[in-house]
């Protein structure tokens, strides 16, 4: 469960405050809003990449407002993937596990599992250079899921994809959420994505959050 209460974030140029919403366990939350309204900022604050001024962020009842990003246990999929340019795909998938000092066999098993789930087995030896948009997103997704986070934050993961790929990605995301049992928070400006993926829909408008109970 992701619970955001009365959150205020310092952003140069505009201010976000009094933001509250709750994504229940294993739900797929969609955060919508027009470009430049602060969706990404809010997502980053949840991930711990932005300082908050007030309010709390709680994951499954644990207050993580002051917890360092690496200790929050959130899988983060940024826009365009933001892959590590110098690492092979295998290394990227292994990154979080290495930091957690998982043993080698367990790492290997998890990489294979993710590669199969996301269909990126043929890419493992490559580096990000030259990957297609869909491939990048799948790798970014795998990298974020590798350490079995309970929460997944996705920042416009489908915006740069063509129509066909997007359809396949939506299916993939659904499958992933089921398979990995994650609570997702997905930022987008596309209402079709919201319709196809979302179980809970939030709109960020005029600096406040409204929950669509549709």
């Amino acid at each position, binding site marked *: 469960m992701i619970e955001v209460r009365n959150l205020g974030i310092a952003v140069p140029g505009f201010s976000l405050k009094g933001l509250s919403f709750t994504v229940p366990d294993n739900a797929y939350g969609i955060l919508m809003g027009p470009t430049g309204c602060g969706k990404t900022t809010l997502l980053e604050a949840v991930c711990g990449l932005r300082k908050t001024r007030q309010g709390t962020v709680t994951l499954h009842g644990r207050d993580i407002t002051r917890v360092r990003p690496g200790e929050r246990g959130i899988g983060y999929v940024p826009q365009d993937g933001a892959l590590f*340019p*110098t*690492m*092979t795909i295998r*290394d990227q998938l292994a990154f979080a596990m*290495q930091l957690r000092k998982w043993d080698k066999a367990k790492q290997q098993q998890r990489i294979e599992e993710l590669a199969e789930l996301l269909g990126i087995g043929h890419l493992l030896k490559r*580096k990000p*250079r030259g990957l297609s948009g869909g491939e990048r997103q799948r790798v970014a997704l795998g990298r974020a899921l590798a350490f079995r986070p309970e929460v997944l934050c996705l920042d416009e993961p489908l915006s740069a994809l063509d129509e066909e790929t997007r359809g396949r990605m939506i299916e993939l995301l659904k499958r992933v959420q089921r398979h990995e049992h994650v609570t997702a928070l997905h930022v987008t400006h596309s209402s079709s994505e919201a319709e196809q993926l979302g179980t809970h829909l939030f709109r960020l408008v005029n600096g406040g959050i409204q929950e669509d109970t549709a």
Partner: protein
Amino acid sequence: MNLLSPSNPQDVHRSLGLIRRRAFGAANAAAILAMSSAAVLVVLVVAVLTLRGEAPLIQTEDKRADTAPLRLYCAAGVRPTVEKVLADYETRYGVRVEVHAHGSGTLYGQIKTEVELGTAPDLYLTAEDSYLDQGRSDGTIAEVIPIGVQRPVLIVAPGNPRGISSLADLAEPASDIDFGIANEGAAVGKKTRAIARDMGILDAIEQRRKTEQETVVALVDAVRVGALDAAVVWDTIAMMTDGVEIIEDPHPAFREHVSRIGIAVVATTERPTEALRLARFLSARDAGLAMFESDGFEVVDGDVWEEDPRIVLYCGSMFRAVFEDTIAEFCEREGVTIDPQWAGCGKLVAQMTALLESGVEPDRFPSAYLACDVQFYDSIHEYSGQRIFGEGTIVSENDIVIAVAKGNPHDIRTPEDLLQPGVRVGVCHPTESALGTLTRQMLSSERFNNIYGRVQAQKSVEVDVGPTLVSQILAGGLDAVIVYRSNVMSSAANLDELEVVEIQDGESGLARAVQPWSIAEMSEHKQLMERLFLALRSEESRQRFESAGFHWRASR
């Protein structure tokens, strides 16, 4: 970025890619980079350290070899010669010298700054004498030893295609010769203008010159590459440069306006003795100067090289109290040994005469003589037609006075009062000491009514030197003595028991001894003696003389 992929065809890149992947892939790149570069750094530093060992010091038992090298700032044009001399010095004595070369003027400026900072070198070798004078007057430089001279000369392209024979040719109104001279900031520029002034062509030269350069090197190069037809530069640099020809201008002004090359000890050096020893080596006629001479320099009459020379010095006994400390300090600083012979001047002259008659070795003969009176110098400065001593320079004067017991119980006012019955009189021997001779001359004169014979008859004692008479009167054995004022004032305590009676000689100079200093012609350490003379003329020395009752006559 494609090179970072392993698919690169080139082997080098593949293996490098491997290394890089190891470094940047799984493991901690920063740590690996830092450690590997640190390892490289250590290797390089070790290489630098061992690089230093290439020129091993010649280990001598002398502990000087263990101390830091001496530092010498050297006029760039002289450096090649100086380095040869220094190599010789290092081989012989294991003393290393670091040379930093540049233009004399720049170096001088640098030394002045560094004297402030405390980083100044030990020695300064300049090719321009003006800096030596400046340095001495502003206190940057202590001792200076001359080495040689440079002369301005005219240089032209090889074969002298323009047929130039004199500086005057360049000044001809009709001439189209392109020539350059150094600017006034450079010593050679000053000398060139002085020469032109003497030749009466200064205005023409200033108007006709094509360029004015800051350094001689630039002028030499300009002539060499053909940008100029002629230039006036130092002969030494011209001789060391291929591709230019020197034209001897017969005008005497060219021989007159020369620049001295000299080695100076920087005032702030913490190792004056070592610095001076090196300076002596550089300027010794059978060491440094020989090298300078073979490199085409015109050199001075330098000293003979001895690491620790022993020098005999003759001084009238009157100077013992005022000169002994100065000599000791000088020896300490220079690292030399001086044996002063303190004696009555009559005796000293007799000894010198005897030495000359027996065909003395130069090192046994006094290198210099500080005479009690000019007449002793006169009597020895030539001997059987040969000059024995150089020009004498007056250092001081000393009054002849009558010393009596405090309160002047016999009320002695003039020499004639000595003839009172019962007055016990002491005088000096008329031939063995200057004081005795001068006493005789004074009292034999008309002015003092020729009373010498009567004083002689009256006298109780006749001794070699004035100090003995002072001791005797202090002991109460005499009532009046004819001595130098300095004999009385040699100790401040004397004035508690004695009183000085002036002898009024009415400006005749009869009651006054005049003391000249002179250096022996045969001395093998004339330069050293010049420096001792400088020490003799120093402010401290002056105070010693004056507080002892001498009148100071020397200029610094």
